């Protein structure tokens, strides 16, 4: 259980450049949850996740991992921090080893695991991100494509077997297919491990596909915290926080305003299409088309 209580963070305290990034954040994240964190630039998202990983010291308030202060310099706190894996934006920028194997093995070797265990973990982690260990483990990371490098970097975190995985904009810069594949791998990893997943993203489409709960940060405070469908379809709340509704929601709201009897909490293109089709009677209750395109023509 992650428990954040009245967390305050100030950068460069006591200087003219002092800036308060978090102004009293409280939230709890339970084991196995899939939670999204959204907010405009400067809302405190990256600061918050660094606190969850115990990388920063609170100016006030507490961050507890199973009751242990996350940043403390104690054996117990170090053990707790090892359970948290954090992938920063563009994690492939931090790749430095000469082969994919050594890169993914870096964390497990630091844990002083024996070599067979290290090898097991490297292969499992590479398979988890959809790479074939036999084909890729001897390659030089810098000769891989951008999408492959991103996955190697992610494998380097999964090989630590984190019980909490924090991903900061994991699909930034990837093409649509690379994005889809990476998210599918992350979901499969969650399915297998039942670990906690925390996803920081500007991409509302991505959040709608991956998480079940969304925390909205604005100005260093929690502006909303609730089920993904409810939060991401609340136009007033999102606009007040400096965000937009997903395009599909905007469409449903326009139809609603024009008098259509449709649900506005359809977050994805396919959900919006089904809802419109239902409202128009194009689909049966079971979601099957009343008539196919071909039949429609005859």
């Amino acid at each position, binding site marked *: 259980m992650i428990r954040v209580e009245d967390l305050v963070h100030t950068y460069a305290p006591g200087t003219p450049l002092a800036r308060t990034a978090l102004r009293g954040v409280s939230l709890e994240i339970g084991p196995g949850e899939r939670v999204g964190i959204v907010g405009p630039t400067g809302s405190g998202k990256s600061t918050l996740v660094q606190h969850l990983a115990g990388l920063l010291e609170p100016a006030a308030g507490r961050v507890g991992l199973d009751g242990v202060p996350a940043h403390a310099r104690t054996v117990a706190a170090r053990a707790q921090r090892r359970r948290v894996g954090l992938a920063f934006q563009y994690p492939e920028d931090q790749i430095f080893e000469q082969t994919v194997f050594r890169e993914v093995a870096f964390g497990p070797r630091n844990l002083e695991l024996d070599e067979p265990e290290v090898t097991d973990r490297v292969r499992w982690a590479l398979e988890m991100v959809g790479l074939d260990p036999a084909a890729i483990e001897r390659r030089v990371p810098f000769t891989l494509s951008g999408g492959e490098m991103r996955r190697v970097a992610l494998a380097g975190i999964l090989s630590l077997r984190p019980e909490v995985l924090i991903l900061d904009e994991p699909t930034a810069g990837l093409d*649509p297919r690379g994005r889809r594949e990476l998210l599918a791998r992350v979901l499969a990893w969650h399915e297998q491990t039942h670990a906690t997943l925390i996803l920081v993203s500007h991409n509302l489409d991505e959040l709608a596909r991956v998480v079940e709960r969304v925390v909205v940060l604005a100005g260093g405070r929690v502006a909303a915290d609730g089920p993904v469908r409810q939060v991401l379809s609340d136009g007033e709340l999102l606009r007040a926080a400096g965000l937009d509704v997903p395009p599909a929601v905007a469409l449903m709201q326009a139809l609603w305003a024009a008098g259509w009897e449709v649900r506005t909490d359809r977050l994805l293109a396919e959900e919006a299409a089904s809802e*419109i089709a239902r409202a128009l009677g194009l689909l049966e209750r079971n979601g099957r088309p009343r008539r196919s395109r071909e039949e429609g023509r005859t």
Partner: protein
Amino acid sequence: MPPFIETRGLEHAYPLEDGGQVAALRGVDLAVERGEFVALVGPNGSGKSTLARHFNGLLMPTAGQVRVEGLLTSDDRNLWTVRQRVGMVFQNPDNQLVASTVEEDVAFGPENQALPPAEIRRRVDEALDAVGLAAYRTHPPQMLSGGQKQLVAIAGALATRPACIVFDEPTSMLDPPGRRQILETIRRLNAGEGITVVLITQSMDEAASARRVLVMDGGRIAMDGPPERVFEQREQLRALGLDLPQAAEIAHRLRSWGMSLPAGLLTMETLANALC
């Protein structure tokens, strides 16, 4: 008059450490006219950024040629002019800011052109007005939001008075309001100021706002046409790993269930109007 940008048989290969080469462009023939708004899309590694870097002579052709207003980019004597005509804005605004206040940052280009101070002042003011940042002129750029920093980078490009700006994924690191701000600015510069725009993006919704979409695949141009045409080719795009704009995807699904809708629905506004 020759096209504004013209490539003929353009090839580009990057050298590998082992002495080999990897081909990034495999024969690109392309003409971009003055005042066009072209979106450049394609999977990672398809050659988009490499092509864009040929448009202002940041890269030299391995084979073939590139001309800007008829000037060969491979001729050293043309480079100064070419780079003045074609500005570039990159993905990460933090890597493009060089000065301690917004106006000094924007003045960097014209100062390098050794213009008289009064002219530099005029250009900086105009550029900041054009992107709506006049009120921030004395702010340190690092105190601005991501979208505002990217607007500073755009103002910096504008201050050199280019005829064309190439944007290489300018919105991919920004939040949704920042993205919208940049896209609106790009549209205004194109429609209002007549600046030729080449926009590289991974967002098909952004590409849909261009008047011409180029789809790259494996170092070649695979599709080229107005967005209404290109985004009709759903299967071909999916084979390249690309999506449709969300409104086009919804329209496609509704049509497949028997609904008749007009062609070319690319935005939620046009889709909502067609439905109501």
